[in-house]
Structures are given as structure tokens and as C-alpha cells.
């Protein structure tokens, strides 16, 4: 671009000089506006071209990129900081949510565990009780059976003893040697063994 501009200004100087000659012819007497004093055009155009091109070069290559960089950097920094703040906020919220969830989970767990413990304890107690009751019932039944057996045996012994007694009584009293079997039959016939 500066090269193009230089060429441009050179052309402008040419045009300017032509115009200058025209003005000179017209304004040969001198005086008038200094702005229309044509011989002054060429040096002004030359120095304008030199200073403008130089200024353009310094601005576009050095000064403006630096300012632009700093402004861009600041914008980026602010953007980054805002983004970081946003991210941290989201993280905090997530942590809070997970903390609350953990808390409520723990609560639920605790009540479940309590209920389960209560239930299992109840079941165990029930089982123990039942076992003890069963044992007692069994012992009771055994005892009853033993009592029954003893009673039966005792009754049977009574019949035997009665038979023996009857034999000896009958032998002593009537001299009839009745056997034990005959006595038993007689007893059965009279229904006295009941």
C-alpha cells in the first residue's frame, strides 16, 4: 500500500505542477491567496507524501498493532476471568447438590438400617421364643408320656399283685389251688379288672 501511495502522490505532484503552471499564467501579477500560489504546490505535495506514507507505515506496523494487542489482551483476560467465575460457580453448585444428595441418601440409609435391624432382632427373638416353647412342649409331652407309661405299668403291676394276692387268699381260704390264669380269667369275667 505505501508503494501504491507513493506512486499516487507522484502522479498528484505532476497534476499539481500542471495546475500550478496554469495558475501562474493566470495570476502572473502575484499577491492573491497564498493557497493559490502555484509554485508552492510541489513542495507541499512532496512533503505531504513523505510524511503521510511514513506515518501510515509507523501506525500500521508499530503503533496500532501494539494498542490493538493490549486492548485485545484485556478483553480476553476479562472474558477468561468471567468464564472462570462462571465455571467455579457451577462447580460450587454441583458440590452443594451432591452434598445434599449424600446427606439425604445417608438419612434414607440410616432409617433403612434401623428398620432392618429392628426387624431382624424381632425375628430372632421370635425364633428363640418359639424354640423355647417347642422345647417346653416337647418336654411336657415326654413327661406326660412317661407318666402314662408309669401309670399303665403300675396298673398292670396292681393286677399282678392282686392276682397273686387272690391266689394266695383263695388257696388259704378254700384250699383250692387256683392258678394265676384262672384268677385272671375270673377277674376278667366279672369285669373287676377294670
Amino acid at each position: 500500500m505505501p508503494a501504491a501511495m507513493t506512486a499516487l502522490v507522484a502522479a498528484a505532484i505532476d497534476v499539481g505542477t500542471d495546475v500550478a503552471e496554469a495558475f501562474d499564467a493566470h495570476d502572473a501579477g502575484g499577491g492573491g491567496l497564498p493557497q493559490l500560489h502555484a509554485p508552492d504546490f510541489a513542495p507541499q505535495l512532496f512533503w505531504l507524501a513523505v510524511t503521510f506514507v511514513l506515518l501510515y507505515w509507523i501506525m500500521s506496523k508499530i503503533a496500532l498493532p501494539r494498542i490493538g494487542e493490549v486492548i485485545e489482551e484485556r478483553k480476553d483476560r476479562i472474558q477468561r476471568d468471567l468464564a472462570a467465575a462462571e465455571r467455579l460457580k457451577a462447580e460450587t453448585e454441583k458440590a452443594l447438590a451432591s452434598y445434599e444428595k449424600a446427606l439425604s441418601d445417608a438419612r434414607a440409609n440410616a432409617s433403612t438400617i434401623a428398620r432392618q435391624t429392628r426387624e431382624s432382632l424381632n425375628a430372632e427373638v421370635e425364633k428363640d421364643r418359639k424354640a423355647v416353647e417347642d422345647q417346653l412342649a416337647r418336654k411336657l409331652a415326654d413327661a406326660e408320656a412317661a407318666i402314662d407309661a408309669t401309670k399303665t405299668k403300675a396298673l398292670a403291676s396292681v393286677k399282678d399283685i392282686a392276682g397273686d394276692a387272690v391266689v394266695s387268699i383263695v388257696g388259704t381260704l378254700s384250699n383250692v389251688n387256683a392258678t394265676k390264669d384262672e384268677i385272671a380269667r375270673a377277674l376278667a369275667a366279672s369285669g373287676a379288672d377294670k
Partner: protein
Amino acid sequence: MAEAADVAGHAESHGPMAQFEIKRLVPLELFGYDISFTNSSLFMVLALVLISTFLILAMSRRALVPGRLQSIAESVYEFVAGIVRENLGKEGMRYFPWVFTIFIFILTLNMLGMIPGSFTVTSHIIVTFALAAMVWITVTLIGFARHGLGYLKLFVPEGVPFWLMPLIVPIELVSYLIRPVSLSVRLFANMMAGHTMLKVFASFAVSLPFVAKAFPVLFTAAFTGLEFLVAFLQAFIFTVLTCIYLNDAVHMHH
């Protein structure tokens, strides 16, 4: 130096127009062209040096949190960048360095001209015309480079009935061709008129008797304030118009 001034062939004068005289400080010649270092050249070089040193020194710290000077440099940058973005959109930032150079150069030359006894480079039609011609030629080249012959459609606005074309097209064409003239005359005339007025009223302060001097002095003081505004405003207008012309060439929205 006095000899150099004589080379220009101007008689030393103190009229309101004397401030615009070109004085050859160092007579120079190149390939037959007069390229003398004049008072005008001096202020152009001064502007170049001031702008460059200021912008480079102000940014030397490249601080994330800007100091005073850096804030000014960044403000100027953002100001011109804002004009470019507003008129040309984001892709127009390609032309930003060029537009910025035009703005800061004209602004500085105008402001340097406000220093009493200095020289106002932009009060010369040849300077403002050269700047305007550069803008016009650059814009036209960009227009043809981007749209080829389609750039000529700029002169045929859409939605205009065809029988109006013989009227519209010449008007569009003339208004396009007149751009460098209007652009340069606006700046030149504003600067010259303001400085001439100041000088005329300041000379009243010398010629009027005693108490009456107060009026031209007060007026000159107030008018100097207005001239600072004009100095900024004309640089701004030149820059905005450059952007508007560029927008025509880049986007062809008419």
C-alpha cells in the same frame, strides 16, 4: 532563513493572509521539482514525530490497567475503530490503519495550527485536495478491485423507474466525481476561514482605541474555543466521509 523566504517571492506582510504564506526554510530540488523544506513541511514532520512518539511511548508499558497516557492512546484508537466498525462493519477493520492515519494526521495538523504563530497545513487547498484525492482514488480502486465492472452499478440505484435513469445516472456520476472536491474544500475552507477570522479580529484589537479593544479580545477568545471544536470536527467529518465512501466501495449498499 530570510533569504529562503525571499526565494518564494513574497513580500513580508502582516495582513490576515500572511499566516498562510509558504516560506522555504531549506530550498531543495529533485529531478527538477521544487521539494523545498518549507514551514508547511516543518509542521507535517512535527505532526509525524508527535503522533508517533506519543502513541509509541504511551503504549510502552502495555499495562493491563492503563495509565493516563495509555488511556488517551487507547481512547483515540477505540474512537476511530468505532467509526470504522459503525460504517464498514467488522471486515472493514482491514482499512482501519489507513483511516486512523488520515484521522490522526488531520487532527494533529489542525490542532498544531491552533498554536499562535504556528502554521496550519490543512488550510492549504493543495494539501486537503491531495488527501481527498488519495481517499477518492483508493476508494475507487477498491471498488473496482472488489466488484469489477459491477462497481458501476453504484450509479444505477435500485428501485428507480427506468425512465428516470437518464436523470439519476448523471446525478449519481457527478456526485461521485465531485467527492474529492467537496471533501477537500470543506476542510480547507473551514480551516482558512477560521484562522482568517481570528487574525482579522485580533488585528481589530490592535487598531481600536482603548476600551473598545475589549470586544475583539473577548470575541477572539471565544472564537478560539470554537476553532478548537472546528479543528476536531473537520478531522472527524473527513474521517467519517472516508468511511462512508469506503463502505460504498466495499459493500455497494446505496
